[in-house]
């Protein structure tokens, strides 16, 4: 009897469960992103960037750990005005790209993903929240599989165009993700 119990415990310990988990709406929010003042000109544009640690999002250099994340898709990108402005209707173009920087201080990258490419067609009021249209989900999984030499960090670079404010303003940037896990 005792031997049987030992066998069962060893068997259970050696066989971890097969777990499939899916999260359809995970929101990653980077608050208070500073946007510099736009230069005066005919078609002014401004580029700003922000980064955040991706370790808690599952980024791992270990291939076995990487297998645990089946898919990460971006299906929503939202800018919310926090200070300096109250209306984001001035945005006419928006291009965003996410990447894994080669170092913590560098903006260069060997793996990058374009996450938004927007151009306003109809002039409609937006308000303080701008929900960037994303035609189809964007696969962000490469960003969570850094090499051993790359930092576990995601850098997002955004370029805005339009009748931009001439003073600095701040906004929250949120990314809606759907994640599937298996372990």
């Amino acid at each position: 009897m005792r031997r049987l119990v030992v066998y069962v415990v060893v068997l259970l310990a050696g066989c971890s469960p097969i777990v499939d988990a899916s999260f359809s709406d995970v929101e990653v929010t980077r608050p208070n992103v500073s946007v510099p003042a736009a230069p005066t000109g005919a078609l002014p544009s401004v580029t700003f960037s922000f980064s955040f640690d991706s370790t808690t999002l599952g980024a791992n250099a270990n291939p076995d750990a990487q297998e645990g994340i089946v898919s990460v898709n971006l299906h929503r990108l939202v800018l919310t005005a926090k200070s300096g402005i109250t209306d984001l209707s001035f945005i006419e173009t928006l291009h965003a790209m996410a990447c894994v920087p080669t170092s913590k201080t560098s903006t260069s990258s060997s793996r990058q993903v374009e996450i938004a490419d927007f151009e306003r067609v109809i002039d409609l009021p937006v308000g303080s929240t701008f929900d960037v249209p994303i035609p189809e989900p964007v696969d962000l999984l490469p960003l969570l599989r850094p090499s051993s030499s790359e930092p576990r960090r995601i850098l997002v670079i955004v370029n805005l165009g339009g009748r931009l404010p001439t003073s600095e303003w701040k906004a929250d940037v949120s990314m809606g993700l759907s994640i599937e896990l298996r372990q």
Partner: protein
Amino acid sequence: MRRAILATMHLPKACSRSLGLLACAAVSVSAEEAMAQGPAPETGQITYTPMRRTGPEAPPSSRPVHAPPTVPIYAPVPGARSGQAHAPPPALPYEPAPVKRYASPPAQIYAPSATPRYAPPAAPLATPAMRSRFATSGTPAVVTTAVPTQAETGRRTMGLGFDLGMPDGVNLGLVLSPADWLRLAGSFGTNTTGLAYRGGLSLLPVGWGPSFSFEAGHCNLAPTNSVIRTFFSVSAWVAPYVQELGYTYFNAHLGFDLVRGNVTMYLHGGYTFLMGIVRAPKSVVVDSSTGTTVTIAEEGKVYAQTLSAKLGLVFLFGGS
């Protein structure tokens, strides 16, 4: 002539009168002879046999109209039940008659079986009233109407069960065992975080030893702890997001049940399919330097297939 005619006319009358006198004399003589040969009759005793009328309450064929049989009709039948097979004896005294209408007692309805389910015939009557009605034959009819009960047969059907395992947790509940090979259970408990309840059945083909168990259970949504996270092998980076977990599970187990009297101890193990939901009401800070947070806006769905096991104890009430 006239006298002659008259004389002849009186002649037959005289002859007939004389013949009548002679006959009377002969009869009286024979009567005296007969009286002289036989015993003198006893005076003052009259014997008659009353006729019983057939009543409307019973058909004539069912009643003994004539003399009762020499063999008592209501003699006790071994193993017969009282008051069921025979009518009570007649109250009127019958004179014995040589003719025997009923040659044998009624057939034995309740034959004694090999297993002594009834008391032996030597036992006394159950009640004094029955004894007085059936005591005419000298040997009392004996019957006990005992029906075997569950306690006499040693069958135990209900009890309590306790078990410990994952993903079931700790459960305490009722056990119903209508047969040796079948055990039904319903229980409440906890998976160490929230309320859990479960129902299932166990099949024991030989009443003990190998068993097959099928169960379905549910654990309410509740904050997780290290026990739950360890069982589900939750990765370190996922752990902050698994703040609340609730699940429904189905077990298919093989096991071994050790039965000792009223107590059964078992170890079951096998396959479990589980489906649940994960919630994270609180945002998770993924980068404190920038204040980046992650919020699970919509509850996540979890499906798991795993090996599972539990150790349990069943105590059945009653029986011998």
